């Protein structure tokens, strides 16, 4: 199909993808901030974008918000082309950037009211919406104070509220909870989940694996401007390290002996900790699990409990970003979409 005669509402869209990014490149001099990024976010889902500092997350978000133009590649948001239809695209999105973008001199209420008016809400509605969002982000008490008197977390929440005024179909959150206390973080998560339940699509960058696990339906890890892994939370975990078997013996004193027995039978990778009283074995497949239990049972060790654990997302993150080189051997889990 020719790019120039696509009908308005299926332009570059497979219909269910709220965000489609293809081959986006952005270089700053020698720095390849983005070096050919592809990703999709399905309508009504949350995509978590992970990556170390300088990976290109903010650059990606800014391109998708029409704040900067890519050097190459295409991106569609809500069916609109970032390059060709910026105004329509802006009606579709809400952005909470990494750095607060509130007017320090205006009160929290006035900040939100202004944005409501700029989004063409009638005065009355803009007022109601501002009041409602201040309430939801626990800012009612500070509503009339200038934003410059707000604490860092309060500013952050005001910024989040500002991005939600127009009930955007697509919401970008660039490290939304950095610097928030745990209770406030939960509040923000609730609000994000609420937006999603009302049909919004969210692209979220974060450094908190817990946040990714809480909110994201799918994850994309980028490093040095490239996507190095993508897929569901469980998929990524399974891909990275497999599981760990933890065995709690009846007699902790037997731990060294147990580990030695396993080694003798060729089951390597067993470690133990006297502190926790646990024997841990890295598993590569299910047969190994049976073998370990078999060996321990036949040698007569008393077992009080067993458990298998997936690696934490932190471990996943460290493993993936740790081994990412300049190779093209990208472990792609999400095979759909790009075709």
């Amino acid at each position, binding site marked *: *199909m*020719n*790019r120039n005669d*696509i009908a*308005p509402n*299926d332009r*570059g869209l*497979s219909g269910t993808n709220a965000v489609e990014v*293809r*081959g986006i*490149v952005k270089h700053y001099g020698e720095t390849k901030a983005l070096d*050919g990024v592809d990703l999709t976010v399905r309508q009504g889902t949350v995509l978590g974008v992970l990556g170390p500092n300088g990976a290109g997350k903010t650059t990606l978000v800014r391109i998708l*918000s*029409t*704040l900067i133009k890519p050097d*190459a*590649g*295409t991106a569609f948001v809500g069916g609109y*082309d970032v*390059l*060709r*239809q*910026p*105004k*329509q695209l*802006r*009606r579709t*999105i*809400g*952005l909470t*950037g990494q*750095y*607060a*973008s*509130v*007017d*320090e*001199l*205006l009160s929290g209420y*006035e900040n939100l009211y*202004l*944005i409501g*008016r*700029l*989004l*063409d809400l009638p005065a009355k509605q803009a007022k109601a919406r501002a009041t409602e969002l201040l309430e939801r982000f626990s800012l009612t008490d500070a509503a009339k104070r*200038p934003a410059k008197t707000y604490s860092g977390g309060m500013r952050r929440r005001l910024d989040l509220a*500002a991005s939600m005024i127009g009930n955007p179909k697509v919401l970008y959150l660039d490290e939304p909870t950095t610097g928030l206390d745990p209770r406030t973080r939960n509040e923000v998560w609730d609000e994000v989940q609420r937006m999603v339940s009302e049909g919004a699509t969210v692209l979220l960058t974060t450094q908190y694996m817990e946040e990714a696990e809480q909110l994201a339906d799918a994850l994309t890890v980028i490093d040095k401007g490239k996507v190095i892994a993508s897929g569901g939370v469980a998929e990524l975990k399974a891909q990275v390290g497999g599981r760990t078997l933890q065995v709690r013996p009846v007699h902790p004193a037997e731990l060294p002996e147990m580990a030695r027995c396993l080694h003798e039978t060729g089951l390597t990778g067993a470690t133990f900790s006297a502190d926790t009283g646990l024997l841990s074995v890295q598993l590569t497949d299910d047969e190994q699990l049976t073998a370990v239990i078999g060996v321990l049972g036949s040698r007569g060790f008393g077992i009080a409990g067993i458990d298998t654990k997936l690696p934490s997302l932190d471990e996943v993150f460290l493993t993936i970003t740790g081994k990412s080189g300049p190779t093209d051997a990208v472990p792609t889990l999400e095979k759909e979409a*790009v*075709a």
Partner: protein
Amino acid sequence: MSAATLSPATVKPAPLNADDVRIGPRATLRHIGALTRRNLMRIKADPESMLDAVLVPIIFTVLFIYVFGGAMFPTRAQYIQYMVPGLLGTTGLNLAMAVGTGLNSDFQTGVMDRFRTLPIGRSAVLLSKMAAEMLRALVSFTILITFAMIIGLEIKTDVLHLLAAVGLSLMFGMSIVWISMLLGMSLSSPQAVQGVSMLVIMPLQFGSSIFAPTGTMPGWLQTFTEYNPLSALADACRGLINGEAFSHSVLIVVIWSVAITAVTAPLAVARFRKRT
């Protein structure tokens, strides 16, 4: 659909916004209104930012009339009639220069990023800055004239001529706003903008006929003051208020204003577009 046609290599820079929605003039007016309100609320929240508009005309008047006035003219009354109309022009210039500082700090704080992700015309941000500045200038003009009249300024013509002098100063000030915006978008910090603005304003202000007749100045300076638009502006205001000839200097001011706007406005808008 085929993804092949969308691969990076084949993507041409799109025919710009070919099928993008236009934001209608009424919506733009509403946006300008909302943003002007914001600019005025910023002044309310930070009244010190009005100091220049309120105090500078008074301080300049007092300083020059009482400190230097006696030395330059036989009577103080004569000097008031000479200098205050000139001050009208320079007041517009001073305030215009504040626009760039404000614009710069908006870019610094990320507020501009917020605006740029909203479906509003880019011009709304610029025009609302001008609107707020215009109101500030009107306050300043009112204070200056009122204060000057208290200490003896006499409007020898009529209100219409006085308003014409104010309008002319405003018009010149608005052409300078574009220069200020250019500075605001080119320099790295609000302080830098302020500093450079001062460097521009000072020589223009004092190398003009505003405070003293140019007759006693050395030749090179006289040449400078002759071509300095602020001299023409001061002469025009003087003529309008004191009932002397003014059409020639008014014409020169109009030409200057149009020329400055014609050159700098497109540059400022282009720069603004590039950064937005």
